[in-house]
């Protein structure tokens, strides 16, 4: 077994950490060049580790890596961009964690997806810059679906291609998008979207992220989008995401603490 040890440089956004042994961690990174990849960082949990802080979920860092027999090894790490305002706000942190988990779940290793990388980077930047924390993830969901082959069809009926009149319209994950009245019986479960919600979704498809988050969208419409896009994510991933549940719990616990304050 020859142990070829070749060093190389790369960079990416750290998606998640898994601790192994006494002081090591495995990190999953999503990079522009390499797509999703894993590596091990030895001794990173020791206080003296020089990589600590540079190699944490939710940081965009540059790495020096060494090829290993099973896993490549992080030998140096340097932060290029951190998102301090996201890290300092529980709701934004939870939302960012959700975006990271979406990328982790919707990608396979070693398959570059530059557009998705740029979407993630721009979304974290937007959250860090104080954009509407409930609009960024909706834009992200719609586009992560499109960029990984699960486009939500909005321009007509996803089943028959027919035109859609401006009225409450069914959106069904199994059908792949909006569904006309005639096709409803075969469309599977879904939910009705209001005309404003459909307009906002179509706008999200064409607009840039900064354009989209600048919109003023009524809370009820955001709720419709959250529910509908959540259906698509669950349908394609065939699971409930832990981070999505956490975001949900924070919303709920917000009202719980408010009640406690009164008693």
């Amino acid at each position, binding site marked *: 077994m020859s142990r070829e040890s070749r060093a190389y440089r790369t960079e990416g956004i750290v998606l998640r950490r898994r601790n*192994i042994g*006494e002081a090591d961690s495995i990190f999953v990174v999503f990079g522009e060049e390499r797509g999703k990849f894993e590596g091990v960082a030895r001794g990173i949990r020791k206080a003296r580790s*020089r990589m600590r802080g540079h190699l944490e979920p939710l940081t965009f860092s540059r790495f020096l890596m060494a090829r290993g027999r099973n896993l490549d090894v992080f030998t140096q790490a340097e932060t290029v961009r*951190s998102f301090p305002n996201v890290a*300092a706000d*529980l709701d934004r*942190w939870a939302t960012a964690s959700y975006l*990271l988990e979406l990328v982790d779940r919707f990608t396979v290793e070693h398959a570059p997806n530059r557009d998705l990388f740029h979407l993630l980077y721009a979304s974290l930047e937007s959250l860090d810059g104080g954009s509407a924390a409930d609009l960024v993830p909706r834009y992200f969901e719609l586009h992560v679906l499109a960029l990984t082959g699960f486009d939500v069809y909005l321009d007509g009926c996803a089943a028959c291609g027919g035109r859609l009149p401006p009225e409450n319209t069914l959106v069904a994950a199994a059908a792949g998008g909006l569904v006309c009245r005639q096709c409803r019986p075969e469309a599977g479960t879904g939910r009705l979207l209001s005309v404003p919600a459909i307009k906002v979704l179509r706008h999200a498809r064409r607009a840039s992220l900064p354009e989209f988050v600048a919109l003023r969208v009524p809370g009820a419409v955001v709720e419709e989008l959250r529910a509908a896009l959540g259906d698509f994510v669950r349908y394609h991933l065939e699971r409930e995401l832990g981070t999505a549940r*956490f975001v949900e719990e924070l919303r709920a616990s917000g009202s719980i603490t408010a009640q406690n304050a009164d008693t």
Partner: protein
Amino acid sequence: MSGSGGTPEPIARLVEQFHRLPGIGPKSAQRLAYHILRVGDDEAQALANAVLEVKRRIRLCSVCCYITEHDPCNYCSDERRDRSVVCVVEQALDISAIERSGGYRGLYHVLHGVLNPMDGVGPEDLRFRELLARVQDGGVQEVIMATNPSLEGEATAMYAAKLLGPLGVRVTRLARGLPSGADLEYADDVTLLRALEGRQAV
């Protein structure tokens, strides 16, 4: 490596059990299992008993969730400790580190983990319910969040502030900064920034 087929089933089972322990890889698990095979019956019995005893006699303190033989634990039942301050830690081991420093005489609360939604650890998987109950019972004026300075540790502290803040209790965070022995030039921005914020007169 695994020698499937060749390894007698009881040994394979023991290897499997050791492998589940934190920090034990397949090689170490095998070494431990074959070690057990060589030791005398008494020694093997002693190990088995020690494992069972721990499970039988050690429980979580009903107040602070520390691991204890007596409920409430020694910390919670020590009348000389300041009952108005509760220091919240990630794991039971952290308490010994704080005790060793000698600078703290209040009570503790063990969360048994930190928020890590990516790995499915939400608030309900930690001992927040018990913490909330303690604060609601009254008498606690300050809750010191001593979770690790990782993103998850910070988020856990923020969650505690959000949960307990409305009850009128002061929620504080351990001052963070550079670990002693760390080189300034290798410190990341967030750590440096916090070290600056937490600076003290010399």
